[in-house]
């Protein structure tokens, strides 16, 4: 059975985040990746216990909006060990080119009407998953669809695509089938579209949880002596 994951919800306070989690559970999500505000980050364990009570697993997400290469690398060095997911919102080509290849980055967001030319040359460098936040679609449908169509047509077969809600309000949340319908309309099959809200984010989370565990030594090397 598929386990649906909302790969981006914005948590501003404990009450607001609990409201979002309750709605996500109602909509059929198994897990949520939360971008916590600095206040919420301090009390994240409290939120985690609330989420367990509700029945939704939660993970921390950092969304970086770097001004350039140095800015991005500094942020990655500082935060990779503290967040399960790191996403880069690419506002310029320099940041996009670095984020596209860096293995510490989990997903890229290319905003509607990017200020750089997004062509096959840029696309050929992308190794990480590309995320399409549904709230960007709700804000400006035409620009979002124009960019998303380019992403799906150029990258659709090469890299994985994730659809998240990007919601900070329960009214911005949508069900898994509705999120999947976004890429289905852009040309994906139903199975592949559903993978964008289930299997693809799940594999990223699984991989990152292993990397963040104490057993992890290096890529492909795990310590097994502690548990016997």
């Amino acid at each position: 059975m598929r386990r649906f994951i909302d790969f981006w919800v914005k948590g501003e306070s404990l009450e607001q985040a609990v409201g979002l989690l309750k709605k996500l559970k109602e909509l059929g999500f198994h897990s949520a990746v939360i971008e916590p505000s600095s206040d919420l980050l301090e009390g994240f364990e409290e939120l985690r216990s609330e989420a367990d009570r509700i029945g939704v697993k939660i993970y921390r997400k950092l969304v970086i909006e770097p001004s350039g290469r140095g800015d991005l690398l500094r942020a990655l060095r500082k935060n990779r060990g503290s967040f399960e997911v790191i996403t880069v919102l690419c506002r310029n080509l320099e940041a996009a080119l670095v984020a596209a290849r860096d293995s510490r980055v989990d997903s890229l967001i290319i905003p509607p009407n990017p200020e750089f030319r997004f062509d096959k040359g840029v696309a050929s460098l992308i190794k990480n998953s590309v995320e399409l936040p549904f709230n960007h679609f709700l804000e400006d449908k035409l620009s979002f669809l124009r960019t998303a169509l380019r992403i799906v047509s150029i990258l659709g077969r090469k890299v994985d695509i994730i659809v998240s809600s990007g919601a900070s309000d329960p009214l911005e949340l949508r069900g898994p089938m509705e999120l999947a319908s976004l890429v289905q309309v852009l040309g994906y099959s139903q199975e592949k579209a559903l993978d964008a809200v289930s299997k693809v984010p799940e594999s990223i989370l699984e991989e990152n949880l292993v990397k963040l565990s104490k057993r992890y030594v290096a890529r492909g090397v795990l310590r097994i002596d502690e548990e016997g």
Partner: protein
Amino acid sequence: MKRVKKRYVAFSSEPKFSPIEIFRAVQASYRELFGLTGLASADLKLAKGYQEEGIAIIRCALKSVPRLFLAGAAVTKIGGERAAVRALTMSGTIKKVKKKINALKIGGLI
């Protein structure tokens, strides 16, 4: 002539609006996203509505189901008020849709 297969999709809104308002909002959203030709080929029809529960069951052509889901999800306002329209369930017959809605424990419709 080949018969066009249909599907019935149940939508609810948050906050609750009347079925006709939900249908009009979804229809307008569909038209905005896929144009008049798309709307015509989807053959949308309000098959049944439940005023108290704020549920609209919309019939559409099978091929247009993903588009209908997206059109519903794209609704952000109904009658000038902030709202969200969400698909509850989908089936090939109204009877099954009602059964599924009842299973979701949203009122006793049957």
